[in-house]
């Protein structure tokens, strides 16, 4: 069953055609990877999906519903969570409270209940915290739980951001270069987590990735993008041996 579909997505910035008539479909439960050289429009594509940018043309269909015009803050409530290429964590908060913000879309008590911290508010807090602790256990973040994010190593922060996206209990998760900035060991860990996310939590993964070993290891299907256009969609081995893809990477 198709979980997410981009139809003829299009976006220009000034004179630059960043994304041109891109169509693809992500099946429920698969790991779908977008590759492409720098400036191919991959991040723009993500920003279109998470509604940070408005579409120039085309439509976004999620779970059979057109989401092309919904507000950016409502995307996560539908079950689409994301991470960022350069890590956008809340640097001055602890790991725990970063993850708790991930629960935001899952609702909470009225403001006056929060101010008075009524029993209902306490119950809601505890319920959220239980979910967050599950994610902490899953990603082995116990030792960093109360540390301020700003002081953590890059690799850990990358995991925290993944965790923050997970606490919102998404059906589809968008990972923007999950391995960038990681050393080979950390990249390997990351690949296991990505697979765990799918197998244990049943989350569909749509990711942008540069590291071809990671791409090859986890992806079910791969989309190659260049100059904002789709070059090819197919099995990882197929795409990585496609001469047009190789040329795009070499030719820049």
């Amino acid at each position, binding site marked *: 069953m198709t979980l997410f579909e981009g139809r003829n997505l299009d976006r220009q910035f000034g004179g630059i055609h960043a994304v041109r008539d891109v169509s693809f479909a992500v099946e429920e439960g698969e790991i779908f990877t977008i590759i492409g050289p720098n400036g191919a429009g991959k*991040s723009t594509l993500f*920003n279109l999906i998470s509604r*940070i*940018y408005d579409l120039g043309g085309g439509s976004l269909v999620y779970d059979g519903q057109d989401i092309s015009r919904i507000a950016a803050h409502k995307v996560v409530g539908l079950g689409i969570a994301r991470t*960022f*290429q350069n890590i956008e964590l809340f640097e001055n908060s602890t790991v725990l409270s970063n993850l708790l913000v991930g629960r935001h879309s899952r609702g909470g008590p009225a403001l006056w209940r929060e101010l008075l911290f009524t029993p209902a508010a306490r119950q809601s807090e505890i319920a959220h915290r239980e979910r967050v602790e599950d994610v902490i256990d899953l990603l082995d973040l116990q030792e960093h739980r109360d540390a301020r994010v700003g002081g953590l190593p890059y690799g850990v922060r990358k995991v925290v951001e993944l965790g923050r996206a997970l606490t919102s209990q998404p059906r589809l998760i968008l990972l923007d270069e999950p391995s960038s900035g990681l050393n080979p060991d950390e990249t390997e860990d990351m690949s296991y987590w990505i697979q765990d996310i799918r197998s244990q939590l049943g989350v569909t993964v749509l990711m942008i990735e540069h590291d071809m070993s990671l791409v090859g290891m986890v992806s079910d299907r791969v989309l190659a993008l260049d100059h904002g256009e789709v070059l090819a969609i197919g099995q990882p081995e197929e795409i990585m041996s496609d001469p047009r893809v190789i040329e795009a990477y070499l030719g820049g």
Partner: protein
Amino acid sequence: MQGLIEFTQMIISGVATGCIYAIVALGFVLIYKASEIVNFAQGDLMMLGAFLGFSFITLLGMPFYLGLGLALVCMALIGALLDRVVLRPMAGQPVFAIVIITIGIGFVIRSIVISIPGWGTETYGIDTPYSGGVTSLGGLVISNEHLAIIAATLLLVIVLYLFFRFTMLGVAMQATSQNQLAAYYVGVPVKSILSMIWAISAATAALVGILLAPITFVHVNMGFIGLKAFPAAVIGGFGSLPGAIVGGLIIGVVEALAGFYLPEGFKDVAAYVLMLVVLAIRPKGLFAQSVAKKV
């Protein structure tokens, strides 16, 4: 006919006042473009410049233009020094820190001016070669002080334009404003450039202070005019030099007209109401290029 003359007269005095706002706003924008620092002490730098001008011209009896020039040079040095000592360590810090530190600088400048014997809390005048007279045009009258302000603003705009357009230094400054990192990589000495921009900004502050002196006199609180220049800079779009000039003129004219035609009280808030309206429609002012943050 009488109504038309009154209207034109209001426009003229609005333009003259607007020029003052424009130059102060220019000082804000120069610094903001280059370093993203909003200098809340700009008004106080202006006041300090005026006091220096007063000292050279009135106390030491120098010829007006010599005193003016000397005040500009002194203020340029002070501006560069401020950048070097106080603001350089603040690069990359959040907005509130910059706001606080420049407000603090303003206080310190006021404190220094109050404590210097012969300056203090009194009000002084500066005699200029042009003060006192008026120029008449049909039914219209323009005082020489206002003419001088308009002329000086024009001159300043032309000089700055030529400087940024055609000199190496000016081009380097522009490059620095657009992208510090890139400028650094192509070999622009970014730090000295920033100091120089502060120097220029402080010198324009001194210029406007001395231009204002015959009209509002020299005193510790004259820097409050800077608060009106903020809306000017914002309406123009904080990062735009032409925007600052246009913003200043708009505020000056709107104020003058509001003061004449609208009920009491509107003159003083006209600038701020106008600014809120502009911001509600265009959150980055009239002339700002919109740049989205890359994620």
